[in-house]
């Protein structure tokens, strides 16, 4: 039954396509379908190129998830009325979340902001046991020593 139907359709289409105007209509329709199917992909290419290229971000310091330097841009922003202190504060808070530690850290942040102490907070374990602490202090210290002498911190707490 269905094969009979298909052969009937085929014959009918052939009969219609013999007409020139019909052929032209089918051609135009096909062209429109092809253009439409190409359209969205080209427009998505354009929108992708509009986005800024993925920038390289340092993973060891700054904006990485584990380490936060507060304030982040203290080297660039210098308030002449409140010069940056020569003493930096180094903290390590990681492991099981503890609201008491977070409140203590908030106090340190307020103090650091008020007195112009750059603050470095370690949020991930680096070494086992308590050894992350000297490791992070050393890391912060080397980071400072790699700067020109006049923009270095002098002490760490």
């Amino acid at each position, binding site marked *: 039954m269905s094969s009979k139907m298909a052969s009937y359709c085929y014959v009918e289409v052939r009969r219609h396509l013999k007409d020139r105007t019909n052929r032209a209509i089918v051609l135009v329709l096909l062209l429109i379908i092809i253009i439409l199917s190409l359209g969205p992909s080209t427009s998505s290419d354009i929108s992708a190129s509009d986005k800024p290229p993925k920038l390289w971000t340092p993973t060891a310091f700054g904006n990485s998830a584990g380490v936060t330097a507060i304030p982040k841009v203290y080297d660039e922003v210098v308030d002449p009325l409140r010069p940056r202190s020569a003493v930096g504060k180094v903290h390590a808070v990681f492991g099981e979340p503890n609201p008491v530690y977070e409140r203590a850290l908030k106090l340190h942040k*307020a103090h650091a902001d008020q*007195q112009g102490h750059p603050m470095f907070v370690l949020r991930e374990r680096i070494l086992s046991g308590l*050894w992350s*602490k000297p490791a992070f202090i050393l890391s912060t*210290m080397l980071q400072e020593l790699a700067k020109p002498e006049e923009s270095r911190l002098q*002490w760490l707490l």
Partner: protein
Amino acid sequence: MALVSSFIIYKEPANGHRWIDADIVVMNPKIPLDIFIPPAPEFSYVNMLATNDRHGLNNGCFLIRINPWAVKLLSAVIAFHTFKPKVKLQYSEQSALEEMIEDVRNLSFY
């Protein structure tokens, strides 16, 4: 001192009271840390300010000058167990720091 290593009591409903190390709390944010820095040039030889308690050195809170001496001291602390595996460190890196400070004092290896 502006920073006090302190303990905070908090209440646990069934177990009564428990001590929690806070661990360092700012008591007065109006005091800058700069006032604890040894004055130069008379005390330029001071590289570190730390406190002792009844167990010896307490490294819960200390000031350290940023210079090559401190870099070597801290690297030695981290490497302590590698080079002196037989030395028992009762308080982990705190004891390692104490041992290394003693070494610096005795051998003046810098």
